């Protein structure tokens, strides 16, 4: 195989990341631009060039409406999710912090300081979203994601990575995607009525305030409210069903965190082996594996789509 053929094949592999609709129209043309700009004897795409093509594919895939990555209806659902997540976690966190402070007025200083910092960062993210500052909010969510990830990476034992932590990490990733791929939080605010806001705030406050209760009572509160919310979303409208589909994975982890007894997750004697329980690992990884499989299937289907150069 000549160097030119090798380079073209490498470019085609990168272009396979673009949506099939975009490739049908633009693949031959972009390939022409790339091959024209290639250095003599070049056999592989450069690193910067590869990153640029991957970034371009991501931008086009995340842009709502044009190539079927996210139609207008999914764009609206993402816009609603971009409001719901930060508001929910702010109210939940505020209620839980108040409940814990009232129960333990002499809370250790470090713990109190961590709780307040966490509350302030969530308040900042919610404020940016409610002000409609999409890019700033996405940057703030990215910073929070890095902060939490660093905290997890620095933890002495990765058993810390339970479902409840995965909920936060996944919600932050979802929040970034929702902010960038939707028409923006302003659209979410236009769609949501006061009843929707009341439902989110009420559910979050009740779940957060459950921190004062016994673990069993708290589990009952959280599970009941999560189930009611999920059923309400499933029944209300096509848009709310899309919102439910987007929130399915966080709700799964939320349920795992509260429903599955910790003894079943960790298991006696497993901690000593350094492996924090096969069930825990399975439950934690299952949706991520399912999501990766779906993404791979979509990518393969997209890559096998017949290509033909045609006018836009």
């Amino acid at each position, binding site marked *: 195989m000549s160097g030119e053929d090798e380079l073209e094949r490498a470019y085609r592999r990168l272009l396979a990341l673009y949506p099939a609709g*975009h490739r049908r129209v*633009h693949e*031959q*043309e*972009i*390939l*022409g*631009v*790339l*091959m*024209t*700009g290639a250095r003599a004897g070049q056999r592989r795409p450069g690193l*910067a*060039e590869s990153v*640029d*093509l*991957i*970034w*371009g*594919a991501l*931008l*086009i895939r995340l*842009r709502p*409406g*044009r190539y079927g990555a996210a139609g207008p209806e999914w764009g609206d659902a993402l816009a609603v999710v971009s409001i719901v997540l930060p508001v929910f976690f702010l109210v939940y966190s505020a209620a839980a912090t108040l409940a814990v402070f009232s129960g333990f007025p002499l809370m250790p200083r470090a713990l109190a300081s961590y709780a307040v910092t966490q509350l302030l960062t969530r308040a900042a993210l919610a404020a940016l979203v409610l002000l409609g500052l999409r890019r700033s909010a996405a940057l703030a969510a990215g910073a929070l994601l890095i902060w939490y990830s660093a905290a997890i990476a620095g933890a002495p034992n990765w058993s810390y990575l339970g479902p409840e932590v995965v909920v936060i990490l996944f919600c932050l990733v979802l929040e970034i995607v929702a902010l960038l791929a939707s028409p923006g939080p302003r659209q979410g605010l236009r769609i949501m009525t006061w009843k929707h806001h009341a439902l989110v705030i009420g559910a979050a406050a009740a779940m957060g305030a459950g921190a004062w209760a016994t673990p069993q009572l708290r589990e009952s509160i959280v599970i009941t409210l999560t189930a009611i919310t999920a059923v309400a979303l499933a029944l209300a409208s096509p848009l709310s069903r899309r919102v439910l589909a987007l929130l399915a994975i966080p709700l799964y982890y939320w349920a795992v965190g509260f429903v599955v007894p910790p003894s079943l997750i960790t298991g006696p004697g497993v901690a000593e082996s350094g492996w924090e329980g096969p069930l825990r690992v399975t439950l934690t990884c299952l949706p991520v594996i399912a999501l990766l499989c779906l993404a791979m299937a979509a990518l393969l289907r997209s890559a096998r789509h017949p290509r033909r*150069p045609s*006018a*836009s």
Partner: protein
Amino acid sequence: MSKGPLREPTFLILTALAAGAQHGYGIMTDVRQISGGRVQLRAGTLYAALDRLAAEGLVEADREEIVDGRLRRYYRLTAAGAQRLAAEVERMHASAVTAARRLKLLDGTA
């Protein structure tokens, strides 16, 4: 469509097309030349920008050619694109005049 200031790569792409229809590689070389070598667009960035500009109705496909067995698609400014570029030029000009006045660089305006 966003009415805020255009980002520099967008401004340069529209400027490149203001002289007439161009294909992708032509736009890339023209942008490099217009910016004095400061902005070097790559294919991924260029086509993401063209996709967005086409969705906003600022540019559109003009014609296609096959050169050395490779497809070339030419793009041109739409009337809305020319209007948007003109508005941006006006905005930048007004800002530049204000800055020059305050620096007392314009005769008789200080």
